[in-house]
């Protein structure tokens, strides 16, 4: 089951490229996660700090219900789409350096 990559002692340059790939993927993941969390916190704070927002209604339903029940989801999908594109680009970059 343990199928360790062939190069058990990758040379220094290779190890360096792998580490910078991991670092850039991590930075990407953290920034998307933080951006999304800030959005959620923002929504929670708006609801708590501005109760009159409940009076803004669309088809009898208050605006916060629209935001939390519907509006958040396109944001999740957009985050996922942007992340997938950027992650693939990071990998592409790594590949083009290593396979030169």
């Amino acid at each position, binding site marked *: 089951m343990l199928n360790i990559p062939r*190069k058990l002692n990758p040379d220094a340059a290779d190890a360096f490229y792998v580490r910078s790939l*991991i670092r850039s993927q991590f930075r990407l993941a953290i920034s998307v*996660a933080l951006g999304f969390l800030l959005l959620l916190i923002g929504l929670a704070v708006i609801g708590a700090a501005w109760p009159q927002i409940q009076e803004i209604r669309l088809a009898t339903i*208050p605006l916060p219900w629209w935001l*939390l029940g519907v509006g*958040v989801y396109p944001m999740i*999908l957009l*985050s996922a789409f942007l992340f997938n594109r950027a992650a*693939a680009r990071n990998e592409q970059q790594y590949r083009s350096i*290593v396979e030169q």
Partner: protein
Amino acid sequence: MNSTVSLLAVLIVSVATVTIAINGLRLSRTTGDFYVASRTVPPWWNASAIGGEYLSAASFLGIAGLIVVSGQDGLWFPIGYTAGYLMLLLFVAAPLRRSRAYTIPDFAQIRFGSMPLRRLTSFLVIVICWLYIVPQLHGAALTLGISTGLPGWMGAALVMGIVCMTVLAGGMRSITFVQAFQYWLKLAALAIPTVFLLLHLDLQGQSATLGGAIFDVEAQQTTAKGLYYNISLLVALLFGTLGLPHVLVRFYTNPDGPSARKTTAIVLGLLTLFYLFPTMLGILGRAYTPELASSGNADATVLLLPGRIIGGTAGDALTAIIVGGAFAAFLSTSSGLVVSLAGAISQDLFQGTVRGFRIATVMATAVPLLLALGTNTFALAGAIGSVFAFTASTICPLLLLGIWWRGLTSTGAVAGLVTGALSCGSALVLAAVLPTTQGSFHDMVSQPAAWSVPLAFLVMIAVSLGTKDRIPSRVDAVLARLHVPEQSHDRNG
């Protein structure tokens, strides 16, 4: 309410599940077949299967009930369930696929090469699966009781009986098709009744929201849980998802890292589509079954709405559709969990023999059934929230640090897992024993994720820093395997 139609729906779903499972026996049986199948399973198909397995009783019945009880606060639950998959996509999906781990204990072994850590992880997986199955059985008991009037324990016994049979037959799990079908079945079973209910109200000239009055009521009677509770719940849901044992196993079916990412993105789309309907039904519930909020039976909202709004034969037919979908939810989630559970038990207790797997399956179904029969039905969404808190305090730090930090040692991992499990577990037990009081202390123990997750991370990091000399020598090779894109170091994946 005419219970015959509902009973018929339960029987049809049960018979269909058993039939497909037994026929599936011929199609694929081993993890090897599962792996080979991965070459031909397109991402959207795989994504439907993940959605089918993930959408459990808590999603199908619990969310609408929660919206009836807590109003706007209830909307955070589906957000958490969905955003949990976003976290899984960001931090776990591609690296985990590349690790070629089939289960979480496999990952622990690949990453650290430590048998004690593997055993500890298996133990935690077993606890998590048991705790996760119990609310499914409570859901089954509730559904059967409400829709047919039969004693609730029969629903729980029926679900576990069918799951035990299908898993013993060896089908179900390996068939991506069944789980994929379950997603669309569950979606249809909520979408069709929702559309009919809304149309009916529209034709009658009635307002689905009583002209918006139901949102005013909420402002008066504040059952709001408070900021700490909501934040803690979100932490649990966001970080609990990426450690769920039955979810991880599905990622193995993706051929490579990028397709694992693509699959997860499609799962997000499918969850978004699904959660529209429990939310709408919850709003209808606030208008037409508001008395359920105080009766402690709010999880029945979805089941009672058609009878309340339309009634007659049409109401019975719509109820039957929902009941069928609900049983599909209990069956698919439970069978996914039982397979993960039986795999973990048999691997570590019976050295992975076929006979061992059979004994393990019986153990895997009997224990949660006894637990479910011995405990009272409590709010489904809340019970699942506790399981997510436990996963987020244990498996989540292990996966996140194991994938992204080369400094994690097996000693650190063990210390963090034990800390997370003990602190979160004892808090949840304390919350169950203590009398329910509205207070910050009760919130702290009943929803511990906000402090137990950071605690587990801190212990894992601190102990790893203290045992730096124990960093496995092959850590760089393992991390390279997790993160380096497939084509450049292994063209055959």
